């Protein structure tokens, strides 16, 4: 369902978290997103009700299956927030950002843009981290092995609603 995010103005802050790392999550056949270790970072909201746009980048390897995978982000602040992209069942996310329907044993690159109306007040601490999930495969990895790392990460920009 299409949603227009209300106009926002000047940029208040830009926060980023980049990691040069390898990650092979467990539980890939459960259609669930897994947090990518060491990608979480906290920052403080500058303005109540501001707009945040997060760009995320991951690179990996689809091995041994024709299943698909997807990367996204999670944001949280106390009990508020969640994972952008449903990851609880086979008819949920679709895992259709990288690899789904194609051949196995190929690399993938996943760039995502996430608009966030967080609704938090100024001073609230928000945490963002990267998430990775896959469909019908145990062979998909974020980066190939400990010997094949690459940079992954996210950049969050907060914009004023004034």
């Amino acid at each position: 369902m299409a949603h227009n995010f209300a106009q926002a103005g000047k940029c208040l802050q830009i926060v980023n978290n980049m990691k040069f790392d390898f990650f092979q999550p467990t539980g890939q056949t459960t259609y669930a997103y897994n947090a990518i270790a060491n990608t979480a970072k906290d920052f403080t909201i500058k303005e109540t009700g501001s707009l945040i746009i997060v760009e995320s980048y991951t690179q990996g390897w689809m091995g041994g299956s024709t299943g698909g995978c997807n990367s996204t982000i999670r944001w949280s602040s106390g009990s508020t927030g969640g994972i952008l992209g449903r990851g609880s069942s086979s008819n949920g996310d679709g895992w259709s950002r990288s690899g789904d329907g194609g051949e196995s044993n190929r690399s993938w690159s996943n760039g995502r843009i996430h608009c966030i109306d967080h609704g938090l007040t100024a001073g609230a601490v928000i945490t963002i981290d990267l998430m990775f999930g896959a469909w019908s495969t145990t062979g998909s990895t974020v980066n190939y092995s400990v010997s094949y790392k690459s940079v992954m990460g996210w950049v969050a920009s907060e914009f004023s609603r004034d």
Partner: protein
Amino acid sequence: MASTGRHLNIWGKRWGNVGKTGFEDTYSNTPGDQLFLGSSDNYAYYDCPGSEISFTTTITGGIYLLRCDVQSYLTSTGGGNGINYCFRFNGTQVGGTNGSSSAAGDTWQRGGHGDSDHVGCFSINRMYVVQPGLTAGTTVTANVMAGHWGSAELYHNYPNYATYSDFYIEEFAPL
């Protein structure tokens, strides 16, 4: 592309089979936010329904950065033909040219091209900068467009899953 002055405004859009937060526990199949291009729809870009952003310019001579993250699925039909996305800004198609490569059109090689059997999904982002010379107070509509080459079949925001896409426009002052 033009260099810009200070950042002024930003407008965001999400469309597809989820709501505004993107983390609802159920998807809502929304045909009005999806696009399917069959094999006969080749060599041309088509508007992606639901991707429209309408806004009012706040400065004369502003510069606009368009960025999108679009969900795509290419069926096995087509034998390795490729796809691409572009934009329509204030009535003008930008960032993509209709026609085959031999007719000075797009090469359709941003995604999928070259896989001889079937392609599946892939991650694709596009960005484009326009400096249309508009006056302050002009109402503008912009949207994302999708196209493919040859007999490929392209789904954008694939039905009956929680697929969705994001698009934003940033307005900058001229230097």
